[in-house]
């Protein structure tokens, strides 16, 4: 469990739908090393394919995004 790519060997990929994202920044609070809302009020994904051990945190970001703008591929 954790520490590497999943069974298929494919790392997860974080996808943000920027048509939905309104920079509420909840994701930044949960995972600041992956998500950053800058002073221009836009969200930047700092790491689209973070380490597998971060998956539960990424899933929390998906669930707690008020705009349902984040999804995980892989």
């Amino acid at each position: 469990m954790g520490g590497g790519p999943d069974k298929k060997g494919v790392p997860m990929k974080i996808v943000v739908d920027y048509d939905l994202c309104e920079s509420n920044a909840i994701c930044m609070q949960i995972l600041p090393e992956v998500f950053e809302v800058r002073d221009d009020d836009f969200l930047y994904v700092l790491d689209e394919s973070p380490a597998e051990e971060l998956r539960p945190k990424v899933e929390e970001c998906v669930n707690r995004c008020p705009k349902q703008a984040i999804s995980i591929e892989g």
Partner: protein
Amino acid sequence: MIPPRSVTIVGASLAGLRAAETLRREGYDGSITMIGDEPHLPYDRPPLSKQILSGEWPPERSGLTSAEALADAGIELLTSKRAIGFDLATRQLEFGDGGTLVVDGLILATGARCRRLRATDHLAGVHVLRGLDDVEGLRRELDTGPSRVVVVGAGFIGAEVAATVRTAGFEVTLVEAEATPLARVLGSEIGEVCAEIHRDHGVDLRTGVGVVSVEGSRRVESVGLSDGSRVAADILVVGIGVVPNTEWLEDSGLTIDNGVVCDQTSLAAPGVVAAGDVARWPNPRFNEVMRVEHWDNAVEQGAHAARRLLVDDSAAVAFAPVPWFWSDQYDRKIQMAGRGRPGDEMHLATGSFAERRFAVLYGRAGRLVGVVGFNRPRHVMRYKSMIEDGVSFENAVSADV
């Protein structure tokens, strides 16, 4: 700990759904039944007063899940089924259709419903906005072309409806009993900023007045205000708060007092938890008994309550969130975290009221207890983390964010 043989969730909205999903994520393999009184699959409420009301999104886009996803997760959903009673001693639920069900684990997530103005039930054109059917009813009427909309209550829902309807080109009068919108939540200074935003967008904002009468024979025709004035209305939208749906539990043996009363861990009785708008619990972080009507709380407490059902009392943890919510009005994103209130020490941390882009900190007893931001999401989240970390007000004020 012997996990419950089955878990029944009453309420099929956000808190209930997140509770069900959390049970599966935690590895629970018993049966899960979620029971809702609406005909719809679980849907998301925030878009209702904005994208769905404006017509930008079709109603189905508010869906939170699909029948397939629920089936894949082994979550049974019963729709159009209203719980009307529960007996803790026998653990039996009673339904409006005459059915009964004896439950093991029980999650109460029946939410809240809108307050209504008295003696308006017989009038067409009077609306509240809580559910998908409400917004579709309001949209249908707006589509038929009436132009004068009166919104009663400039709280978050009333303000959002006013913003959406005004942006769509309707004449809007917004009536608020307090001296400024949101005065009791944000204080009068920030409330005044909200007032200016409405007025700049052409909303006729009437503050410090209440509704004393609603006239009309079959449809609403006008609204009488406490200052003696009268406002013509083709449509009246009432946004004067919500009440928790607990009547059905009055004789259950559970403690009901402005919500289902829970302990710190969200437990209302052995094997019974509550989550979302209906739950009232002591939040140890703020040493305050609270009932929180926010979207994020439904997500978080739904998950917490589900986990609570799966552990022994000795392993149970307190639910101690920093409440957070947002409201989108015109081009402003208002966000609030913590428990700031008028009377707290306040500090403008960034921006200015004049540019309507700022973050204000709230301090009480030397601690940072709240933050309000207008178009400052990054700051709000940074300060929210500081509230979680118990940072002193002084250190928050001097922090480089």
